[in-house]
């Protein structure tokens, strides 16, 4: 028995990378060719919308195998005195992490104040399309396959004028087409802009209103008809709940029943977990699943959200970012369809109290086979330093290293990229240079984004590009379980939309530590066909076609 324990410990030690001291990220935005600057459109009138920032999406719009980047622009608001065009930017990746601005030729022109982005091949024509949520009419840009896009939101039936925030594409009815879930925030407009001044000492300071000042707006679920149009099925599906003030969304199968469920992070109201009952019907069961409140029963200010199997027990856990002085919440999935708030025992809660979290991602940044956590931070009040002791508008982003599947350690020195102090909002993840480690992009409110190149000496990895046949073309919603040996299996799902207003690349990435190969990977495609692939060597990117297994693969790693 002791021998087995010792062998297991030895295995853990030898398969881990360098630990929290090994991380290194360098900010390479400008040298990568990204010149975009986000504009809040602020004029001092303290419109709530101008403090929420905008997101970003990594997606391979030109199908050349590397992640391109779309950055959402805010816009001009009443009273704004700035000049010049305000539009989002599309950057084409040349494969080495150099980006070329192709906005002009792409024709992605949103007419509203942009918020979030989510990309998926909604028409299954082999190229990835783009949805942009907005304060005002949302945009849907169909990829023409020649580097240009056509705006089709109104024709497709997805141009809601409500204040849209994060969005997620996923196939909720198993018909082979991705449906679209769009969170909606609050009922704010320029005529409904109360004075939310706060007194500090003898001074009355004009400040942004918190969400309590406004009513919530129901989210929208669009069913993809498969003919290029969508139907708003929110009401009959059971997701049109007025109490929500949705900002973050992640679609994943929380109970392992083969149907994709939807989790929504609401700002100051209880979070929603919509259990997919089949036939596009959902039950809101967050309270009975332990995921509506934090462990002490507080409805926190939910912003961003991600799902990942951090404890490698084959079910997906949840991570939600919240307001300053509130802990970010780590909901551990107990496997009975019930989550437990593990934030404090796991070491995630305390380091978050001094920050206001937005973007969030479970991501294995050192490829040690444990999912770490990256968090985008920044206060919502531009005068936070005057109003709240120990608060500042600009804040440092955070990296939490997953020590052992139980406990996280805050990484206090992850290189110059994590030492930046900005007002961050969105967070998207991709391997932009094709070197096998995952890089991070933080969007910053009223500022340039930060692309952080991952220079960590990590372990090996396996990257899988999915191609659906009966399932949707990108395999969005597919659940993959990798056999890590020693009885450990880690699960993940391919998601189109998560974090805050953002989307990471449509690639399944497994960190493998020192393993030279994995014996098998189980793939459950949306719509329930399944297959097993493997053995697969480490440091490889493989293309997996539904029903055909691996049809191509190539070595991937540091050059």
């Amino acid at each position, binding site marked *: 028995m002791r021998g087995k324990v010792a062998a297991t410990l030895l295995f853990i030690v030898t398969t881990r990378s360098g630990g929290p001291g090994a991380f290194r990220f360098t900010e390479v935005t400008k040298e990568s060719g990204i010149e975009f600057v986000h504009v809040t459109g602020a004029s001092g009138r303290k419109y709530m919308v101008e403090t929420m920032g905008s997101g970003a999406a990594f997606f391979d719009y030109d199908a050349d195998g590397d992640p391109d980047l779309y950055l959402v622009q805010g816009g001009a608001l009443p009273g704004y005195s700035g000049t010049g065009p305000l539009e989002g930017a599309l950057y084409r990746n040349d494969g080495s992490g150099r980006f070329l601005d192709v906005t002009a030729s792409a024709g992605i022109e949103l007419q509203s104040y942009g918020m979030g982005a989510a990309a998926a091949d909604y028409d299954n024509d082999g190229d990835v399309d783009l949805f942009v949520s907005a304060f005002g009419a949302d945009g849907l840009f169909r990829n023409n396959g020649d580097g240009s896009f056509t705006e089709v939101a109104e024709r497709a039936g997805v141009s809601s004028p409500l204040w849209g925030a994060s969005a997620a594409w996923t196939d909720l009815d198993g018909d082979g087409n991705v449906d679209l879930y769009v969170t909606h925030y609050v009922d704010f407009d320029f005529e409904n802009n109360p004075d939310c001044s706060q007194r500090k000492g003898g001074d009355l300071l004009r400040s942004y209103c918190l969400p309590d000042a406004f009513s919530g707006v129901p989210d929208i679920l669009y069913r993809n008809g498969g003919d290029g149009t969508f139907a708003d099925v929110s009401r009959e599906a059971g997701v049109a709940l007025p109490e929500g003030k949705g900002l973050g969304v992640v679609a994943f199968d929380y109970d392992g029943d083969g149907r994709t469920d939807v989790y929504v992070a609401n700002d100051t109201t209880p979070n929603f977990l919509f259990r997919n009952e089949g036939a596009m019907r959902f039950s809101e069961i967050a309270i009975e699943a332990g995921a509506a409140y934090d462990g002490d029963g507080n409805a926190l200010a939910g912003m961003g959200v991600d799902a990942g199997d951090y404890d490698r027990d084959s079910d997906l856990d949840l991570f939600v970012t919240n307001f300053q002085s509130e802990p970010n919440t780590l909901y551990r999935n107990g496997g009975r369809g019930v989550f437990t708030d593990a934030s*404090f025992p796991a070491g995630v809660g305390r380091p978050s109290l001094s920050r206001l979290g937005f973007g969030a991602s479970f991501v294995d940044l050192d490829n040690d086979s444990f999912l770490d956590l990256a968090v985008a931070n920044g206060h919502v009040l531009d005068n936070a330093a005057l109003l709240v002791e120990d608060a500042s508008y600009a804040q440092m982003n955070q990296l939490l290293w997953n020590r052992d599947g139980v406990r996280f350690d805050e990484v206090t020195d992850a290189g110059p990229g994590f030492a930046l102090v900005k007002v961050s909002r969105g967070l998207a993840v991709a391997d932009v240079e094709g070197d096998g480690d995952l890089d991070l992009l933080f969007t910053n409110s009223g500022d340039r984004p930060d692309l952080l190149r991952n220079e960590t000496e990590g372990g090996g990895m396996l990257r899988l590009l999915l191609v659906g046949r009966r399932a949707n073309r990108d395999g969005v919603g597919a659940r993959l379980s990798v056999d890590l040996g020693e009885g450990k299996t880690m699960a993940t799902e391919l998601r189109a939309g998560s974090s805050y207003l953002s989307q990471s690349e449509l690639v399944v990435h497994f960190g493998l530590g020192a393993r030279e190969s994995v014996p098998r990977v189980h793939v459950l495609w949306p719509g329930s066909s399944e297959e097993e692939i493997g053995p697969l060597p480490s440091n490889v990117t493989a293309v997996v076609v539904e029903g055909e297994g691996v049809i191509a693969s190539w070595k991937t790693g540091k050059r």
Partner: protein
Amino acid sequence: MSAVRFFFLAALVLQPGRASELEELGWEELRSGRAGEALSAFEAAIAVEPLRGSSHYGRGMAFAALVDYGSAVDAFERAAALDPAHGPALRKAAALYAQLGHRESARDALRRALPLGPAPAAERVALGRALRKAGLLEEARAVFGTELEATAEERLELGLLEMESENYAAAASHLEAAVRDPEKASAEAEYEYGRCLEFLERPRDAEVHYRLSLEREPNFHKARFRLGNLLLSLGEREEGIEKLRGYERYRKWDRRVGLLLAMVSSGTLAEAEKLGKTLELADLLLQGGALEDAERVVTTGLAAFPQEPLLRVALAKTLLLRKQHDRAWEELGQVLSLPSPPGEAFWLQGLLFLARGETGQALEAYRKAHSGTRDPPAQFLKEMAAIEALAGDFESAERDFERAIAKDPAQATARADLALFLESRGRLEEAAAQYREALEIDPGLEAAIRGLAEVLEKTSKPRK
């Protein structure tokens, strides 16, 4: 301030050397819950003897009772400046600084207070708690020192400090000590010990302590919530869901109270808005049974709006619920003597008559109140129905109970009261149905739990 009190104060001020008597009067007023009057007395004492540290300390305590923390902290600092050995003033200042988020000032006040010797246990707990909540963990530890003969309350606070530091094993040791003596264990200590055990992956032990917490305080919503969640994770779904039912209603109440409190103490509201929010807050607190908090809010409100009859009615109502009937009559009398008292005053008069068992007069007062209100709230209708039932007007009683429920279908107590009425009329099946409905809304409603058990017992007994 009443005229008698004013002249008494004036007489004392005019006699030099009477500062100590004025100060004593201030403490007496403070003990009786009259913070505004206490403040006047302490200020009168200071007028007589401006360098008297203890009077400034008392003034600080009065400001603190009036939730004017900025002025309170200034008064405590003044007391400490006049008497640097005034430990209580420095400790109160440190606690308030911490509460206000002024961490550096809290540290500084504490640095001056610690050499003055240990504080009494209750003060240590209050100060330690304020410092902990402000994130000043080392400073909070310093308050407790290495005293091993700690009280149960101190053990609880020490346990919470260790929890904050994520030393769960050490926390468990303190919290176990805090609940060891069942006579002294509080619901909060049982709850926190359960929480700590949950963090230590001992869910079944945690369950025991959440249950003990609820035994001590059935309306301890946080314990009910944690127990519900824990049961769900242990696969005991039915009881878990039953425990969580009704939680959202409480949470909304709690959040609204927090928001209103922040608004009325922010100093940013216009006068009329502040009055409206104060009344709303007082009403919410009364509905939630937070009587001491309600009294503090109303008293503070009256210090700002001394002529406002609705606030005085709210104070009288609070006093009634705190079973201080004489004081309630006294306060209400001031409103009823006005040329046109608000309908709410008659409503409260009805309640006070009812408390005296004078049903006829109570009903008369309610009818007066009703005639002045076009759209009476559910609570009013429910109470009127109860009085009608007591007065033997069963038809009106049933009608008004139903009106109350129609007005606010989520009010569990109205259903429980209707059930009791139906039970008293021998309509047991209807009563059981109403009790069940009440429990659907609020599973912890004692009256409904007890009532349903009684009805079920009656219906299960064979009829002779």
